[in-house]
């Protein structure tokens, strides 16, 4: 009853097949953690343009896609990278240059929007942002919204509570569903059919995964279905949600992958310098991304010593006493 899975792909094929110019893309992870960075770099290598990006707080992944010029529009809650970048540097520049269009939401709103997409409904209600400019100020004009059927005609709608006064609520903000053309997440373990296991916090990855029309899962470790099915309480995504499975060790690097490796502070500190200057940033892209054929070559350029340095301690799941200054 086990059939060799056609979902198992090389990263380059998965990106080529599902991530097209102008596609609506969502990536998993959160700031310094479990961004699908290998996939992000491959998108940059393949030169994708005009991507419409959905993100709650995907610091590093967002900044690199924006920095490399892949992104045209972005719906986002938070573009920072913890202590390493209070505001993501290339993102900041792109918005100030007006080379990308941005529309702002709160983190919970973006999460609810993915959740609504996963649930197959048009919206979810919340009280978050009542009385704020997140409701009043739209990043995308009515015209832009109407031209792309994948964007709802209105940003957020304030409505009455249909159950008058129930739970002491008068007004609500209705946040519209997102159904990305493609979502990419990086997980600790998956089998060849796509069943996936995330360790540590799942962020909004599960909702993003289930909301998508196509789902690419890159995984640290490709394991047997027997191994996955032996511990089903720890799995989150069933095979039938998944379109492509890519075995990609260190696939979240330079962001962290809990129980596997930490984020690389050296990378982030270097990146801060590169990102702050256009020429240095172009050199960075030329050397590290365009100058490498694939994620393995990129990792080789970083060097085994740096990787060794951030390997996770088995007790805590991160690299203890790592120099993070």
């Amino acid at each position, binding site marked *: 009853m086990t059939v060799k899975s056609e979902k198992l792909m090389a990263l380059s094929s998965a990106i080529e097949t599902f991530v097209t110019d102008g596609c609506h893309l969502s990536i998993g992870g959160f700031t310094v953690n479990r961004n699908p960075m290998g996939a992000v770099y491959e998108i940059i290598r393949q030169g994708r343009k005009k991507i419409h990006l959905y993100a709650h707080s995907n610091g590093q992944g967002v900044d690199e896609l924006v920095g490399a010029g892949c992104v045209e529009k972005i719906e986002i809650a938070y573009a920072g990278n913890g202590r390493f970048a209070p505001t993501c540097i290339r993102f900041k520049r792109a918005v100030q240059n007006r080379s990308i269009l941005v529309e702002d939401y709160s983190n919970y709103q973006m999460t609810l929007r993915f959740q609504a997409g996963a649930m197959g409904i048009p919206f979810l209600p919340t*009280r978050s942002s009542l009385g*704020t400019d997140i409701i009043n100020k739209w990043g995308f004009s009515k015209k832009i919204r109407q031209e792309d059927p994948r964007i709802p005609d209105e940003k957020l709608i304030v409505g009455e509570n249909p159950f008058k006064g129930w739970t*002491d609520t008068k007004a609500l903000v209705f946040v519209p569903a997102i159904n990305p053309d493609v979502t990419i997440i990086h997980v600790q373990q998956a089998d060849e059919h796509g069943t996936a296991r995330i360790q540590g*916090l799942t962020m909004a990855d599960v909702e993003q995964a289930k909301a998508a029309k196509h789902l690419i899962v890159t995984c640290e470790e490709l394991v047997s279905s027997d191994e996955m099915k032996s511990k089903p309480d720890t799995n989150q995504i069933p095979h039938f949600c998944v379109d492509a499975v890519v075995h990609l060790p260190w696939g979240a690097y330079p962001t962290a992958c809990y129980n596997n490796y930490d984020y690389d502070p050296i990378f982030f500190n270097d990146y801060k310098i590169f990102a702050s200057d256009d020429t240095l940033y172009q050199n960075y892209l030329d050397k590290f991304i365009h100058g490498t054929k694939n994620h393995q070559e990129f990792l080789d350029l970083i060097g085994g010593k740096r990787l060794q340095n951030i390997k996770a301690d088995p007790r*805590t799941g991160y690299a203890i*006493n790592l120099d993070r200054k």
Partner: protein
Amino acid sequence: MADYTLRELMTIAAAREIPDGAITFCGTGISMVAAMAAKHIHAPNSTIFFETGAIDSLLEELPLAVADPRVMYYTAVNGALTDAFAYMQNRKTGKQVVGIMGAAQIDCFGNLNSTVIGDYHEPKVRFSGSGGACDVASFVDHSLIFMQHEKRKFVNKVDYLTSPGWLDGAGGRERAGLTGKGPSKVITNMAIMGFDETSKRMVLDYYYPGITPEKILENMEFAVDISKAKELQPPTNNEIRILREKCDPQGLIL
């Protein structure tokens, strides 16, 4: 009296506002250290939690982001964003939450801007955006704000209202449909500001040793009532010791 830095003073000032039993929502940086300090000093039954879904993290090492793997180790529950924000909006657990935020601008009702300086579509300066700040500010009854005390930051009108404070003052939140309360305190590098119980306008509660109320007013676009202001008690030796030894021994934030 302890020898202390201004940043340490601010951290302790915030920590003192966190009651025992609180569920403390914090972001990256100084707010995380304040939450840890409260737990180590006077609020052992408080629970630190992050919007990323980590509940009651041990924080054996200081995280540098709310998604840092250090928040995932030895927690009560490792959940997801859906869970974390629901605890704040939930009517039972939300009432126990103390939120800690920062911003680029604040107005006299404690409304915050962490999105843009200038026009939204043609910003002079772009910041990170709301993250979870707008959410926690919308939902909970008790929140603290860290600010640098500068005229360009304490403004008559925020360029973009990212996170709701008391909105337009008395009754403003109710009119908008918000159920939680506006901010309790604003903790700056000069003072602790509160909000008038009736008007919900900012008032000066405490000025730091060596800072005059007049100097504070000079660093704000809008005036506030300084008539009831007192000098703040400096941190104790014990508070400073715990801060340095238990909360940030590597000096990553302070």
